[in-house]
């Protein structure tokens, strides 16, 4: 079982920007944390290492009669204090910084943020250091922070930084900051900041090459017209001779002209297969990795179905129902991914609750895909209820690596199998 120990940061540092802003507004933060944070960020990386050494020397050299560590402490502390004292004389005057990032970032993949620095001032700026926003536990910057040796006056430089995020959901990053490095390199001047960046970390998509849906006795009429509720979208079947009562607007003038007999266009309605997807979020005794795998599988199934002839009409995650219309150029996959990005481990699986959510929609559905992270009688009862409602149901269960906790009559997918399909492994054929 994977344990992300970095989550312990939650104890002290809120994950959301709103929470961090609220924390900054507290008097205790203003009194203790803010001065420390300001000092910390006023120092360069080298300055922080030397400050740590100075702190060690301070502790070790308390007894000034006995040793000489206090000389080391005095020297390091003096250098740092002197650097901090002159930092205000090194502002990045005339420099503008802008950050751009993607709206959606895939979980665990490198997200690229582009920084543009433009020196509109009259003076060249030297040793510009960039600092990325603080990432509590759910993200990590790749590589060292970028820097620019010289930013000549009137010129612009573009830099890129990448980060990986380990938690789904909406993110609001604090601003990027840039500052000039001071002589000796122990501190930096006053910072200039970008605006914050908002984006959503969406789940990884398991690549699904094919999914077999149970055939349903009924197709849904109405096609795109009812699907999108806008405009008419009848498919032209051919022309036939005019009969009494046909609409005048359906007359086909070219045929009439060619044959001399009035003819009308004949249409037929399109029929779609409408699919619902149900994701079970009751973790039970399973770990969160299984839930993440199930979410990736659901994302992959929706991506696959949205490229085909079917329409995805429904997405149920736990006890939440999200009506959708995806596929056939209606809606976008991003809609579903945004919903899936916010899925958390849900309450205990309840057949009654899930059926009450599904029942009003069953008459419109052709088939339903049920992705579970565990299997028991209540889940079997749900499948039975769906079938009794006249809708075909395909059940997929995410099992542990051994695959021993799933009965043989249920389609089981191993965690590693789905995770491989998210990476460089083979596609899934379901």
């Amino acid at each position: 079982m994977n344990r992300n120990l970095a989550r312990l940061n939650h104890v002290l540092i809120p994950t959301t920007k709103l929470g961090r802003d609220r924390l900054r507004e507290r008097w205790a933060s203003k009194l203790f944390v803010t001065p420390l944070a300001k000092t910390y960020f006023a120092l360069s990386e080298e300055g922080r290492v030397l400050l740590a050494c100075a702190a060690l020397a301070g502790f070790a050299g308390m007894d000034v009669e006995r040793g000489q560590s206090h000389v080391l402490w005095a020297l390091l502390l003096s250098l740092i204090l002197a650097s901090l004292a002159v930092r205000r004389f090194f502002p990045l005057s005339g420099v503008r910084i802008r950050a751009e990032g993607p709206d959606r970032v895939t979980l665990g993949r490198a997200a690229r943020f582009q920084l543009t620095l433009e020196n509109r001032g009259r003076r060249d700026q030297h040793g510009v250091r960039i600092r990325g926003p603080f990432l509590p536990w759910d993200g990590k910057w790749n590589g060292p922070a970028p820097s620019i040796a010289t930013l000549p006056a009137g010129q612009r430089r573009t830099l890129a930084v990448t980060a990986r995020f380990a938690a789904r959901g909406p993110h609001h990053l604090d601003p990027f900051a840039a500052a000039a490095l001071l002589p000796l390199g122990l501190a930096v001047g006053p910072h200039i900041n970008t605006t914050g960046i908002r984006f959503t970390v969406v789940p990884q998509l398991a690549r699904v090459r094919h999914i077999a849906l149970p055939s349903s006795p009924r197709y849904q009429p109405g096609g795109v017209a009812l699907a999108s509720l806008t405009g008419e979208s009848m498919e032209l079947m051919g022309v036939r001779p005019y009969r009494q009562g046909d609409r005048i607007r359906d007359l086909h003038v070219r045929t009439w002209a060619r044959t001399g007999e009035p003819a009308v266009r004949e249409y037929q309605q399109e029929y779609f297969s409408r699919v619902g997807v149900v994701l079970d979020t009751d973790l039970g005794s399973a770990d969160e990795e299984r839930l993440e795998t199930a979410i990736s599988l659901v994302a992959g199934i929706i991506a696959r179905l949205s490229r085909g002839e079917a329409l995805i009409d429904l997405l149920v995650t736990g006890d939440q129902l999200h009506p959708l219309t995806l596929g056939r150029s209606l809606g976008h996959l991003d809609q579903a991914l945004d919903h899936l990005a916010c899925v958390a481990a849900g309450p205990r699986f309840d057949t009654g609750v899930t059926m009450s959510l599904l029942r009003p929609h069953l008459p419109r559905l052709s088939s339903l895909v049920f992705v579970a992270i565990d299997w028991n009688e209540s889940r079997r009862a749900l499948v039975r209820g769906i079938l009794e409602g006249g809708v075909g149901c395909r059940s997929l269960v995410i099992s542990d690596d051994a695959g021993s906790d799933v009965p043989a009559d249920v389609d089981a997918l191993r965690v590693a199998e789905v995770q491989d399909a998210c990476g460089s492994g083979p596609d899934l054929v379901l």
Partner: protein
Amino acid sequence: MSRGGRVALLAAVAVAAALWGAATGARAVSAVALAIAAASLLRRSPVPVSTPAQALLLLASGLLALALTTLIPADEALGGRSLQRGWVLVGGTSLLLMAARSHVLRPEGGSVITLGLGLLVFLACGSVRSGPIYPVLLLGYAMLLFATLHLEDRERPAWRELGWRHRGALAVIAASAAALTAGILLALPGLSRRADAWVLRWLESRVQSGFHDGPMMLGALEGMLQSDEIVLRVEGPAGELLRGNVYTRYARQHWLAPRERQETTRLLSDPLEPHAADVTVIRYADDDGDRFFLPLDAAELQLVPGRVRTDALGVARALPDATPELVRLRRGSSRRLPPAAPGREDLALPEPLRPRLEALAREWTRAAATPSARVDALRARLERDYTYSLDFERADARARAAPDFDPVLHFLFEDRQGHCEYFASAMALLARASSVPARVATGYRVWERNPLGGYYIVRQRHAHAWVEVHLPERGWVSVDPSPLRSFEQNPPATTAFVAGLLDWGALALQRGGPTPPLLALLVLFAAIQVRRLLRDRRRAPSAKATAASQPPRDLKRLLGWLEELGWPRGQGESLEAYARRLSRPAARPEPEPESEASGAPLCAAESLLLRYAALRYGGLGSADALRADVHAWLSTAASPPR
């Protein structure tokens, strides 16, 4: 890293290695480190090493440093002061790792960590005094550190590209840092001494200690720190010293109990009249110990619990699972627990100390003929020539570790100041050197009197040590050699009034039943409460206060009803705004014949909300009337929907 950066790093390693060799004498480590670092220059470029391999490098450096410093002994450089083993390991490992990292391309943490390891070498070497070589090498290392960082970082501009502003700032930083360092180094010794003194004073006022069982170690801080915790209370005629432990053997800084310490269990429950004038009553406030603190001349004893263990030295302890609660005693010449007659241990002197102690005792008691006179002479000399002190300068660790060091001799011949344990130890050993049997006793000095109640309070800080000498004509007698003037430095011998009143009440509770002090306290408390009650009655309660403290309980039901009706109060919406929203004609629902939720109840609800807001925030109107109207509205005008 550029060639210049590698050379600068090698120079930094050389400086750190030079200091290490000078400070520890373990020049093998320095030589190995220097050789490793120099070999990096032979390579065309550093080698990429993975993170786990770098962790292994750290481990290997530690093991190599340990082996080199253990196998090749240091040559006691720098006046024989060698580093502690922990610092040797930290410094040696850092030096070797620093040298090894000079071969690594992009080491973990970068060059700044490599150079930080060099600072750890300086830190380790700084744990002993190395003389002027330390600051000189440190300055050189700092310059090399900044040069290496500058040469190694390609994102830093070259010096020639920088303008006068940067160069000026560099000069300002260097000058300010130099001045600040000099100032700190000049001021630090004085500040350090003051801080030490302050911390010691702070500790002395907070750390709880006092009488302690087990061996008495001279020079230890235990027993010297003071606490105000009450141990016992003494009513009636009290002796000055209450003994709880007696030591007979002295062995290098320690006083120990007799080798053979046989205890007998007995019942000490003499019939004593509790309120007799010549009966002393000792009440224990501390539940922890097992010791009965008794004067040496206790003639009759009534102990609670009565069954106790006593030893040959006259010390009484409670049985296991029991604690002393109460003692009643009468003092006299016929002792109830007479200490055993003097034995060989009571005249024993450690052989290494004997010559100097006997010489000193002879000198001090030259004019004294009898044992009693000799004891008086010794005591007078200690009181006259020695100073009682709790914060005297103790001999440093190196002196204490010397094989011939003895704290009593140090006290007698060098320091001439110390606390009661030093005086008692010196007196006991000098008395033995004068052929007078002597033992050291510890316990409490009865010193502080509570004027309210007329009894004595004994606190932890009254823990004391003194001497019991055996005089042929009087037997064992207590002699306190600590200068009497030393007690003048202690807090006053009279308890402060408020503390005394509180303690008097506590004693009354311990005695059981309402006694005058407790009754007085109760009457005082009752009088204060009655006065407050009368004062509150005289003041008419303000409408605002009433409204604020007692909001109509039915208001929640009113709001709930409105919410269920489809008119919830918005988040953060004030009551006035909410009422205004309800009053808008467009907001009201169309009256339906079959529905009870017509516009009339909404109007009434709006009026009630406005009245409540006026009462709650303006103090206008009557809370009772409003509460009644809300209740009436809920019960009659609108029945809540289901």
